[in-house]
Every structure is written in C-alpha cells, then in structure tokens.
C-alpha cells in the first residue's frame, strides 16, 4: 500500500540571491547615511527645493528613530551600512547569465515571456511594457486622468497638489523606515483621477516598477477625487528580485467624497527581502477604500495597510491572504480608524503557513468619540499545513463611543486527513488534493482579483504546494 507522502517545500533558496559582495563596488561610508549622500540623491533627481529640505529633515528623524522591537527580527538588515542599500554602485542591470537557473525556471513555470523575465530579474531594462504603459496612459489621459512617475510630476502642473499630499498620511515621523523613505525615496507612481471620472481599466504599477532602480524606496501617491472610481494594481506574481534586500516603499491614497479606490497587491518578493512597506488611505464622506492583498514573498514582512475613515459613511473593505513558507516570517495586518459617523470596516484575512513558516495577523480597530454607529467586522482564518509552522492573530480594539458595533473572529485550522482522502478517492494525487484545499482557502482573495491575476495567484499557490503548475 502506498504510504502518505510528505509534500516537500519548493526549494525556496532559489530566490535568495547573493550578488557578488565586492567591497570595491561600494562607497566605503561605514558610519551610514550622511547629509551629503542625501544631497547628492536630491541633486541627481533634480528635486524642487522643498523636497531637498524634506529629505534632509527626514534624515535627521531617521538617525534618531529606533528599529521596531515588537515584531520579527530585523537583524539580517545591515543598518550600520545602510548606505549600501541606498547607493549600491553595482549596475542594477546584472548579467542574465548570472541569474540562477532556478529563478529562470520559476519564470518559465509561471509562463512569463523572456523579455519580462529579464526585467523582473533586474537584468533587462525596459521592454514591451513601456509601450503598454504608454498606451494605457494615453487611454486614461483622454478621460483627464494623470498617470505618471512621481519625479517628473514634481515639475509638472500637479506639483502643488503633490506638495500638499506627499508624506502627509505617512509622515517621516511615523517610524524609522518611513523616515528613511522620506530621505531617499526614488521612483513610484502618481495618479490623479478628476471628479466623477470612472477609470474602466485597472492601472498597474507593474509597468512602472520594472524601471531600473525602482521598487525599493518607491513612493505611490494616488488621489481619487469626488465621485471618481479607480482600481490600481501593484506588483505581480513573479518573484521580484532586487539586488538590495530592503524594501521600504510608501503608498498614500486619498479617496474623495463618494469616490471608490480599490488597491490590489500580489507581492512575491524574493526570499531574502525585508519588506517594510507602508500603506495608508484617507477616506472622505461616502468614500470607499478596498484593499485586496496577497503576500507570498520576502523573508520578513511588516505590512499593515491602514484606512482613516474620516468622512461620514466612509467604508473600508480589506481582503487579504498571506502565505508563509520555509524561513519566512510574515507579520501582516490592517489598521482602521473610524472617525466619521456611520463608518464601516469589513476585514477578511486568511493566512497559510507551511514548512516552518510563521504568519502573524495584527488588526487594530479604533473607533473615535464621534464615530456614532460605526461598524467593524474582523474575520481571521489561518491554515497550518504541518506541525512546525506557526500562525498567530493579535487583535487590538480601542472603542471610544457606546454606539459602535465591533466584532472579531479568529479561526485556526489544519487540513484534515479526511478531506485529503475524500479528494484522493475521486482520483486526485495527495499533492493536488492539498493544493486544491489551499487554493480553496485563498478563494476570498482570488475572487476579488481580475481574472489574469487570480490565475497567477492560483499558479503561485500551486507552485508553493506542488512545485509545478498544471
């Protein structure tokens, strides 16, 4: 009789790049980030004066702030030599031949075209997507939508609007890595949707992040004006390789009166990455913010999108999934602040842990004194695929008025042997049965994604579970 087989992890080390750590290729500035370096960055980027000052102020804050001590360990970050993250002198475009065979194979399994593979591996520069990107820009521009990179927008007709909003939701005082971001941010998107405009196609940062040098301290600023509607998609399922292992991007989202913004992310950073991304939305009266989030990659993540429901009747929907495999510690969650009356937040979070992976979901719900009739539902479910993996749920609630309706539910489960046997009795292999159950568990997210992304995500889960697709 055939024995049960243990499903092995995909060799995750394939993402753990080590590029030639050659001392000569770096500035030898052991004391860390200096004002001179920040000045140089500012000059290279042709910053307006206020931005130069902003960077320098942020640098001061960075130096004073301490590293968070309440989450996963950040010991693997070489913060004494932070400058090496900021200014690697090696060319971002390495040689395709040097990209490990495993990662090339992964691209192949995911069905990513050669040109895109090279770009995702940080090798190729721009490819066809530049063309696609331009086409999308033209299409939405006809509706009056601005979709451009943040640097050039700083010198365009929207400069004032950017100055008014830039790092106001996520100030450099927020935490150490936001201060760092404020000092050295580079690349990212600026989107402005004028009042009443409904953008039919989802905009995708994918086309922007593939630009050389982008995707580490990138800044995304999206303003959806009154009654407008936008779906913005960040990332893709391919393992995103970056030669430095720190990602501290910032995403600031402004949702106007009766506007709707959906922000979807499928993140699969390479497994050496420390993903310390921050996202925050401000939602005006009757506005709706929707976060759809899939976190698969990185070694350590600190990721807690937040919505401030400022206007009456504002709403947050959060749907997320986290998949922590071997060697991964994914600390994710969400924060919501109910400020206006009749505000609503609905959170559905799933997490999967496997082969010793650890996933933690933190939720923080604050209901202010004036948020009469606020409603909040937080629903967390985790699935542990073996005995060595871990999953935790940490809810925090701060309710300051008596008219609020706040609920929290958490479930932790395992795949039952009975379920595996049932599926196998209909002709599935054990691996397929497990993959099917896990995909089903992630269904809340894949249902919210555009079809091609849902397919990508399911492929990704299959790849994590079985090591192959199809």
């Amino acid at each position, binding site marked *: *009789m055939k*024995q*049960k087989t243990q499903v092995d992890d995909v060799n995750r080390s394939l993402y753990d790049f080590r590029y030639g750590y050659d001392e000569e290729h770096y500035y030898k500035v052991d004391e860390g980030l200096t004002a001179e370096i920040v000045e140089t960055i500012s000059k290279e980027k042709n910053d307006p004066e206020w931005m130069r000052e902003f960077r320098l102020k942020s640098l001061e804050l960075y130096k004073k702030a301490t590293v968070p001590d309440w989450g996963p360990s950040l010991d693997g970050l070489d913060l004494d030599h932070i400058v090496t993250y900021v200014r690697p002198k090696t060319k971002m475009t390495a040689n395709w031949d040097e990209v490990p065979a495993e990662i090339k194979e992964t691209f192949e399994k995911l069905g990513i075209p050669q040109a895109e593979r090279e770009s995702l591996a940080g090798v190729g520069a721009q490819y066809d997507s530049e063309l696609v990107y331009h086409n999308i820009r033209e299409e939405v521009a006809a509706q009056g939508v601005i979709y451009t990179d943040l640097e050039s927008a700083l010198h365009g007709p929207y400069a004032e609007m950017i100055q008014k909003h830039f790092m106001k939701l996520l100030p450099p005082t927020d935490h150490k890595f936001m201060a760092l971001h404020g000092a050295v941010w580079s690349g990212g998107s600026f989107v402005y949707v004028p009042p009443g405009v409904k953008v039919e196609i989802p905009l995708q940062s994918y086309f922007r992040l593939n630009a050389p040098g982008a995707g580490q301290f990138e800044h995304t600023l999206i303003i959806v004006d009154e009654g407008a509607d936008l779906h913005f998609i960040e990332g893709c399922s391919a393992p995103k390789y970056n030669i430095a292992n720190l990602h501290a991007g910032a995403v600031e989202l402004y949702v106007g009166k009766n506007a709707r913004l959906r922000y979807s992310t499928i993140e699969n950073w390479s497994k050496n990455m420390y993903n310390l991304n921050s996202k925050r939305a401000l939602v005006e009266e009757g506005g709706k913010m929707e976060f759809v989030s899939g976190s698969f990659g990185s070694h350590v993540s600190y990721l807690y999108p937040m919505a401030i429901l400022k206007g009456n009747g504002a709403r947050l929907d959060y749907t997320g999934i986290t998949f922590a495999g071997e060697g991964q510690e994914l600390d994710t969650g969400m924060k919501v602040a109910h400020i206006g009356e009749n505000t609503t937040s609905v959170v559905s979070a799933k997490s999967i842990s496997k082969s010793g992976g650890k996933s933690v979901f933190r939720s923080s719900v604050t209901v202010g004194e004036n948020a009469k009739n606020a409603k909040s539902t937080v629903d967390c479910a985790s699935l542990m695929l073996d005995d060595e993996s871990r999953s935790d749920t940490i809810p925090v609630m701060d309710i300051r008025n008596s008219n609020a309706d706040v609920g929290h539910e958490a479930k932790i489960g395992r795949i039952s042997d009975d379920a595996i046997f049932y599926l196998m009795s*209909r*002709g*599935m292999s054990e691996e397929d049965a497990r993959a*099917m159950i896990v995909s*089903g568990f992630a269904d809340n997210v894949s249902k919210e994604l555009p079809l091609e992304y849902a397919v990508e995500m399911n492929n990704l889960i299959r790849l994590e579970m079985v090591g192959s697709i199809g």
Partner: protein
Amino acid sequence: MAEEILKIEDLAVNVGEIEILHGVNLTVGRGETHVLMGPNGAGKTTLGYALMGNPKYEITRGKVTFMGQDLLEMSVEERAKTGLFLSFQTPIEVPGISLSNFVRNALDRKTGEKTRLWKFRKELEKELAVLDMDPAYADRDLNVGFSGGEKKKAEILQMLMLKPELCILDETDSGLDIDAVRTVSKGVQEYHETVGGAMIIITHSTKILEALHVDYTHVLVDGKIVKTGDRSLVDEINENGFEKYLK
C-alpha cells in the same frame, strides 16, 4: 456468474491496535448488485474505507484483486482511476471549487484527456435533473452548505458522471427523508442501467432497495461475513433482525 471484477480473500483490517475485520471473503462480478447488511459496529464502513485505501485503516492480512490488479498495492488515486468509487457516509465540504469544476477535474484525471465543456455541461444538467437537484448546485462550492440529502445526492451525481466499474455506497440512504431516498434510488437505478457497473450497497434500510434488482445479500457480523443469500435474505433480516446471526 459474471466476469469477476473484485475478489476479496481473507481480508483482515486494523484500526489502531484493534482488529475490526477478521478475514472477509467476497467476490463481485461485473454489473452485479450486492447488499451488505449488518448490525452497527460490524465493520461495514471499515470494509468500504479499506477497499478505497483510507490510510487510517491498516490491512494486516489478505488479498484483494480489482480489475485484475492487486488493489492493495495501488494508491488511492490509482484505485479511483481504475474504477473504484466510494460514496461517503459524510461527504467532506471543500470551499473554493465548484461541484461542476470538481467533477470535470476528476473526469479529466480519469480519462487522461480534457473533457469537452459543452458536452460535459449537458450531461451534468441531465444527471442533476435525474436527482431532482437544482442546477444551481453545479456552481456552488463542493458540498459547502449542502443539506445532508443534497450531499448524498452530490455523491450519486459524481458516481453517474465518473462511471466507475464498482461503487461502494456507504449508507447513502441514511438520514434521508422518504422522497430523497426515492431520488437516490432512482440515481442508483440509472447508474445500474446506463453505466452497467457493479455495486456494494451498505444499508440498514430496505427502502433504497425497493426498486432495485439485487443479486446477492451478505450479512456482516463482528468482522466476518456470516451469511450470503439472494434478495430474500434482505426481507428476512428486515423482519427478524440480526439476532440469529449474533453469537
């Protein structure tokens, strides 16, 4: 006797440290309908699970030949692909995959080729109608939120679609109301007529058997088959119970 498709010889099965089946012998010919009766705890479900290959049921002795192959050497999925089907007493809920996609997936695996969608949908709708199931069930997640009766019907639906050589129906009629039993019986009849497969029907009641032709009846008591007869044995047990077979 029809061509032999299943031959169980001296099968002993343990669950944990306890031996449940103490040497069962049973032979099933192509297209035959066998009824397996017995008091609670006699080992009927154990026999079904052991044949399907549930890892919790350990075979300690004996030999099973299915479709000319050594069944006990086959993995669970191979058993399914070779044409063995177990209708579960408590079917499992699987969120995230629709009944329709699941059946199609299983069919693809069994036949080794992609099932044509149009033809598949047609056939599925036809079988749903046979089982008095709302067509909307096809697009609902597999067994999720189904009533007890709908879950059992979904099992028969899969059996009709997958067309196995041998079905083991583990108390498919238990817990169903009288109309649902009739519907399930209709589905079983349809399987017998159109697929021509063999069945081992494990049951406590005779309702499901009313409209069916029965070739053999076996009485399983305390892990052994103590009596084999024809259809009249069903009626006899129905009247007198198992008392005379208990030691």
